[in-house]
Every structure is written in structure tokens, then in C-alpha cells.
């Protein structure tokens, strides 16, 4: 691909190919854990990891220093729920690995080999400050969609931070359509498949009997065993208030489940129950239309009300273009801050909103010890912004992933540069690069 050739050529010239120790000083430093920005802060990255961040942090001798000149310095944005890396062009089937619609497998599917680190959306999203993404398979013909991954958006071939980091399933209208046309079928199929998996774990030979009834393959059962024991978090798309309560009840029969709610459009109606269950929620915060009967209560205040009830809220953009436009993450978070000024609405503080796009989604997938904040030991994903990162016009001026300085040049930049003047020069545009 043109982009990757150009980028790797550029990398040879200008960018270190491996993790480099760096100290970014004079920063308006955002740790990402919900604490307030620290003026005059420093973050030190060594061996690809954050070793220290805060005010009065000493810069080790001999290490590269970058003066942020008082600008915002933050952890990279974590896309809370996305399809980054699975899609180049949505409507071009061969480039779209979002859903395995004709597969006979379900929970056993693993998206890791479908990810393309050289796809153009990687660079575009990275240039918007997104350094990590929680990537889930799209809903397919079976109830369980399969296993997602946590990825980085670095300019290299090593994309997977953690494979099989989550299992995805949709309840509500989507799940009902797959299970047989009723929510009753969804819950029974879900239960039967988990019971079959549990039986398989105890006695693999039992799958022949259980699996036929539950319409489940061996690979699916193996994946579901990890869901039952909580090794793999179960991300559940669910929106209607009543459906949310029924999903929470699943923990009664399967207490090991680590549930994460995705969407939860009517979550605010049952916020207390979600908080009591200690189940985190990934919201698409600007969804405010009753665009189905399971989302009649949609409001942009959902996130703020859930947060006020004590629920862990992450901000995603999954009801929009979930492969190409992860840059909307900051915009959506910023909207929640704006909402807090509106009479009768509930929003988030700036600090809460920024945590909702960094450390909180990391925690939802059980990886806040690894990523999502500038605390010691986390990955060296650092962004310097030209302005308030939640504001519409702001962009990163520098991005590190795993301590490696990244190219921020995209294919879109190359097209723009070619057509800064639309008319041809001495040669056709095809010669202009």
C-alpha cells in the first residue's frame, strides 16, 4: 500500500524504529484517572512504559527531553468499543471482516488474525490521538459474535495487545432475531450454550449430547468456558431497561460472569440496579433518538445519570462509524462536558469525561493496570495536543505508542497535499507527490 510504504520510508528518516526513552516536560499533564490536570507536569517513559508522571518528577540524565510548552499531555485515547483494524471500506466485502455472517462458529471466533495493522484507518485514528482500541467482532448470524481483542494503533505489524480480551453478544432485538425471534429464545439459547460449555469443561465427551441441543461447536464451548469462569469479560449489547435487568440476573446462575454492558441506552432508568451489580457500561453518549422501541428512553443525559448513580462509564462511538471515526471519541466526551451546563441535563466534568475515554474503558476490559493512564507501569502511550483535547479543533502534535514516536501522516494528508491547488501543473496530478 502507498501509505505504508511512505510511512515506513518516513520512519527510516525521521523516527526511531524502537522504543526510546523520553521525558516530556512543562506539560499540562492529564493522568487519565479522573484527577485534575497538573500544570508544569512531567512524564517519563522508559523501555516503552511510563515510569513516572506528575509535578516535580526528576528527568533522568541522558534521556531525550521534549518541552510541551504548557500544552496538554495525556495518555492516548482508548477507543472503548470499536472495529478498528477489521475494516478498510465497509461496503467492499473483501476488506470488511467485521462479522462472520456465514460461519458455523460463534463464540470461538477470534478476530486477531482478521486485524490489518497496515489499513488506512489505523493511521487516521492514530492521528486523532487514539492509541489503543477495544475491538469487538460485529454481531453475526449466531448469538455469540466471538472474541475481540485489545490492540494498539502503532505504525508496525505488532497490533495485538491482548487477544481474546472479550466475548461479544447482543441481547435485545438483535439477539432475538438471531436466537429465533423472541427474547425468550435469546435467554434460553444463551443459557443452554453456557451450560453445554460448562458440561464440556467437566467432560469433553459430553459435548456430543449437549452441543447438538445447544447448537454449539467445540471451539465455541472452549471460548465460553472462559466466559463462565470470568477469564474473558462478556460484553453485552443491550438497551431496553427491562433487558438490562434480565442480563444482570444472569449473574445469579453464572456468578463468574464479568459483564460489561454496551449501549445501555435506557440504563438511566435502572441506574441503581446497574450500580449495585458493579457492572461497567460503555455508552454511545449522544444517542438520543428513539430509533427503536428498545431505545425509547434515549437521552444524552444517560452517561451523566449513570455516573451520578455510581456506575463506571466509558464513552464510545459505536453507534456511529466504529471502524474509521474513533476520532469522534474526544468530541463525544467534550459534548458530555457541555451538557453539564444545560438546565435539566446531566453530563460529566472534564476530568470525568477524559477518564471515560482512557482509564475507565481500560478498567472495563480488566486492563487498567496495563493502559489508559500515565501511571507508572502503564504502556508508554502519550499524546501532546495543540489545545484542549476535548475541543473540536484540537489535534495531537506528537504521539508515542509503547514509547515509540509515531508518524501522524495519513493517506488523507497526501491527497490533501496533492490537491492544495486543484489544477494541474507541468505534469498531471499523478506525478505530484
Amino acid at each position: 500500500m502507498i501509505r505504508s510504504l511512505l510511512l515506513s520510508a518516513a520512519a527510516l528518516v525521521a523516527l526511531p524504529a524502537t522504543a526510546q526513552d523520553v521525558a516530556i516536560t512543562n506539560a499540562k499533564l492529564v493522568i487519565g484517572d479522573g484527577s485534575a490536570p497538573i500544570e508544569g507536569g512531567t512524564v517519563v517513559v522508559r523501555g516503552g512504559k511510563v515510569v513516572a508522571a506528575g509535578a516535580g518528577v526528576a528527568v533522568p540524565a541522558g534521556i531525550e527531553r521534549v518541552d510541551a510548552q504548557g500544552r496538554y499531555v495525556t495518555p492516548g485515547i482508548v477507543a472503548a468499543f470499536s472495529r478498528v483494524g477489521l475494516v478498510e471500506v465497509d461496503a467492499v466485502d473483501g476488506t470488511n471482516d467485521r462479522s462472520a455472517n456465514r460461519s458455523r462458529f460463534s463464540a470461538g471466533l477470534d478476530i486477531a488474525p482478521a486485524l490489518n495493522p497496515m489499513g488506512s484507518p489505523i493511521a487516521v485514528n492514530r492521528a486523532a490521538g487514539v492509541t489503543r482500541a477495544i475491538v469487538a467482532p460485529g454481531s453475526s448470524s449466531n448469538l455469540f459474535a466471538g472474541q475481540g481483542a485489545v490492540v494498539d494503533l502503532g505504525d508496525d505489524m505488532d497490533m495485538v495487545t491482548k487477544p481474546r480480551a472479550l466475548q461479544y453478544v447482543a441481547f435485545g432485538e438483535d439477539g432475538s432475531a438471531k436466537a429465533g425471534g423472541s427474547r425468550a429464545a435469546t435467554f434460553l439459547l444463551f443459557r443452554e450454550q453456557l451450560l453445554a460449555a460448562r458440561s464440556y469443561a467437566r467432560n469433553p465427551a459430553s459435548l456430543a449430547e449437549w452441543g447438538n441441543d445447544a447448537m454449539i461447536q467445540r471451539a465455541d464451548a472452549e471460548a465460553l468456558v472462559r466466559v463462565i469462569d470470568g477469564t474473558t469479560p462478556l460484553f453485552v449489547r443491550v438497551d431496553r431497561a427491562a433487558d438490562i435487568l434480565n442480563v444482570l440476573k444472569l449473574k445469579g446462575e453464572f456468578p463468574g460472569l464479568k459483564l460489561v454492558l454496551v449501549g445501555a441506552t435506557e440504563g438511566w432508568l435502572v441506574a441503581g440496579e446497574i450500580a449495585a451489580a458493579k457492572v461497567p457500561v460503555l455508552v454511545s453518549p449522544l444517542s438520543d433518538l428513539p430509533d427503536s422501541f428498545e431505545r425509547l428512553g434515549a437521552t444524552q443525559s444517560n452517561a451523566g445519570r449513570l455516573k451520578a448513580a455510581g456506575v463506571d462509564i466509558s464513552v464510545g462511538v459505536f453507534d456511529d462509524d466504529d471502524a474509521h471515526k474513533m476520532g469522534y471519541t474526544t468530541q463525544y466526551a467534550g459534548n458530555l462536558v457541555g451538557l453539564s451546563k444545560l438546565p435539566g441535563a446531566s453530563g460529566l466534568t472534564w476530568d470525568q469525561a477524559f477518564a471515560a475515554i482512557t482509564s475507565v474503558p481500560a478498567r472495563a476490559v480488566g486492563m487498567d493496570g496495563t493502559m489508559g493512564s500515565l501511571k507508572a507501569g502503564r504502556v508508554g502511550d502519550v499524546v501532546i495536543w495543540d489545545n484542549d483535547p476535548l475541543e473540536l479543533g484540537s489535534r495531537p502534535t506528537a504521539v508515542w505508542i509503547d514509547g515509540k514516536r509515531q508518524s501522524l501522516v495519513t493517506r488523507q494528508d497526501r491527497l490533501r497535499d496533492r490537491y492544495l491547488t486543484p489544477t494541474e501543473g507541468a505534469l498531471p496530478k499523478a506525478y505530484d507527490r
Partner: protein
Amino acid sequence: MRLSIAALPLLALAACASTGEAPKSAGDKPAATASAEKPVKFNKDPYPSTYKGYPTRLTVVKNVTIFDGEGGRIDNGSIVLSSGKVDRIGGPDMELPTDADVYDGTGKYLTPGVIDIHSHLGDYASPSVEANSDGNEATGPVTAEVWAEHSVWPQDPGFTRALANGGITTLEILPGSANLMGGRSVVLKNVPARTVQGMKFPGAPYGLKMACGENPKRVYGSKGRMPSTRMGNMAVDRQTWAKAAAYKKKLDEGKPVDRDLAMETLAGVLSGEILIQNHCYRADEMAQVIDMSHEFGYKVSAFHHAVEAYKIADLLKKEGICAAMWADWWGFKMEAYDSVPENIALMYKEGACTIVHSDDANQIQRLNQEAAKALAAGRRMGMQISDEQAWTWLGINPAKAIGLQDKIGSLKPGKMADVVLWNGNPFSVYTRPDKVWIDGALMFDANDPKRRPVTDFELGQPGEGDVK
């Protein structure tokens, strides 16, 4: 969840394209009346607007930053709204009436009401169930005879969100893009009404939605019908225009014709009464359409979704054709692959008519934010664009594209008093509408739950009357 009709028509079209028997060709349209001996005299406005502005009060907003919609800015400005019109606008020295409702705009911004010239509210209404999917008459590639207003459900809650969150006061509702000639558009005032006639913008010209590129050839190619290629798209278009030219010639000569609703619309385009709103992504295809318009003697008012406008900004400028664009949608289909975030700014740089549009029930709620992203992209590449200049993308330019530049799109005295008071700079992510006036009547007030419309559909449902 809702995805754009234009963006991912696979979903929306699959459903509606599968029902109904298609006419065999554009020529098979049912004739509404029998052959006439005399020249046809038909009513050009058989579904007239019944919209009337709601009662107004003499209104003053003062100490406010004004973007006038034509590129002008007044700091510490004032505006007077009287009898539904902008009465005057000026600086702190302007004389103000003493008997008006006065709003202090300190720290706030005032703009003309936002215009979205590409919306499917009402014809793809929420909830987006099959029963409400009325945007594409995807039973034949040429359906110039259909009128979007006959699909619009005025109870679509999307209208109310666009008002409260986006300050949208005027919208053009278009048929979808499954067809080469999808039918007539309708321009609406964003004032709730029992009937669509009650929302129709009085005196607004009609538009004709056309589409080039992937959608028509995919929809009909997949049915084994013409067009299945881009050359097929052009051929069907040209054959239809040739027929329309002949029909118009008969009309002009006073010769008898069978009444043909599609031909009436196309003749209206050829006579300049109906404005072409042309869905078209790729630069090379826009150039083909421009030549086709020359061949048959009509003008394209605006290219919509023009993601490659930046490649031919000079041509669009020369032809006087507007481009209506997204800030940053890309990659959802092949013809959207070369989108760049600087598209809007590059069109503006060329001096061409630049418009931000939504095509989306969600983004219509924050067209100001979309414009802000486009503005920032322009500034990042070194362009000097002021906030007030950028507001022309939401102001006078979209008004021009739908033929209403004399009535809306800027805050000039005598124009309709469609006005948004924002609680901060509308190019900030932290800003929302504080108040919205339409024809001088206060139709939204963030501080007054009684000035927040609730559609019939949402009455008695969870979250009724919520801030949304």
C-alpha cells in the same frame, strides 16, 4: 443503530427494495389522466403550505456576539426581531425599543437559524422500523414523479432534537439515493405541525433529488436491471432528459400531452423552477454530470456528499455549483475512500459555494460542530478563516442552494427572524442552543421545559419531555 441512508444504503435499501412490483421502465409511469385535447393546465402547488408563524413578541437580544451568516461579525451587538422579521441589527450604539422582551447575550453568540439541505427526517423517521421506511421508492431507477413530502411523518422525534440540540430552523427533506432521479424534495420549517403541509416552507422552490455512483447501479444491478454500471447510470439519465426535453417542448408549444408527473417535474427542472440536488461523491462523476447538465440545458444547484469536491473545486467554482459536504465521513464505501478532512476548507479556499450538511438524524443535531472541525482542518493547513466566515457554510450558502437566500440564511433586516442564541461560541464542543426563534416566535428555550416540543410518538413513553 441508525446509519446514514447515503452512507450505508445496503441496510436501508435492502428492506424497501425488496417489496413492490417495479414498472418495466421509466416510460411505464401511470398516466394520471387520459389524453387531453387541450394544452395541460395543472396546479403547480396542489399541496400548499399551511404554515404560519406562531405569535411573536417584539424581541431584543443585546450584548451578544453576532455571526450574521454572510461572513459578518458584530461584537457586543444587538438585534431586534419584530413581527416575525429581523427588524435591525447593529452594534452597542443601535437604538433599541423600550417595550420589547430583552435578552442579555453577554458571553453568548447569535446566528441565523441553521439550515440543513440534506435531511431524511420524516421520510426515514424514528423509530427506524420497516413501517417508517419511506425514503426510497426503489422500484425503478427513475421516480421523478414521487414527492418526498408525501412520505414525511411530521411526528418524527428527530425534528425536535434537531431544533433543541442543533438550532435547525429549516431543512430540505430529500428522497433517498437508490434512484437516479429519486423524486422531489420538500423544504420545511422546523416547527412541529399536525400535517406536513403545516411545516412546508411557504414559497420554497422544489428540488429534484438525483444520484450518481454506487447506489443506483448497485440497487438495480442486483435486480438484473439497468443501470448496473456508471455508464448505465448516465445512459438512463440522458434518455430520460431527452424525453423530458420533448415533453417540455410540447408544453411550451401549447401542444396536448398526457399528464405525466415525472415529466412535469423534469420539465420544471429544465425551465429552472426546480433545483437539482445531486448526490455525487467522485470528482470525475461530478464532471460528467456537469456536462450532462449542459447537454440538456439545466443547472445543478448543489452536489451533495461531494467528498471529492476538493479535486475539482475550480470547476465547481466556475460552474457556480455548491458542494454540500461532511466534515470527516470516510471509508464507508468505495466512492467515499478519498475523503479528506480539508475538503470543506479547500472548497472555501477556491471561493466556491461551501455547505456543511448532515444526511443524518444524529449529526443534524450538531452541524455547528461539524463546521467547527472543518474550520479547524482549514486553519491547520494555514488558511486564515474567521469564525464568521465559516458560518456562511451553515448560513447564506445553504440558503442559496435551495433558492431561499432572500428569505433566510443571514440576519439582514427584512429576512425571516430565524435566530439561534447559543450559550457560548457555537464552534466549541461545549456549546448548545440557549434559545431558538423561528419567524420571530420563541420555539425553544433551554431554560423553559414548556418550550421543548414533544412529539405525539414520545408522549406517554419513557423519558417524555426529557432534555434528550
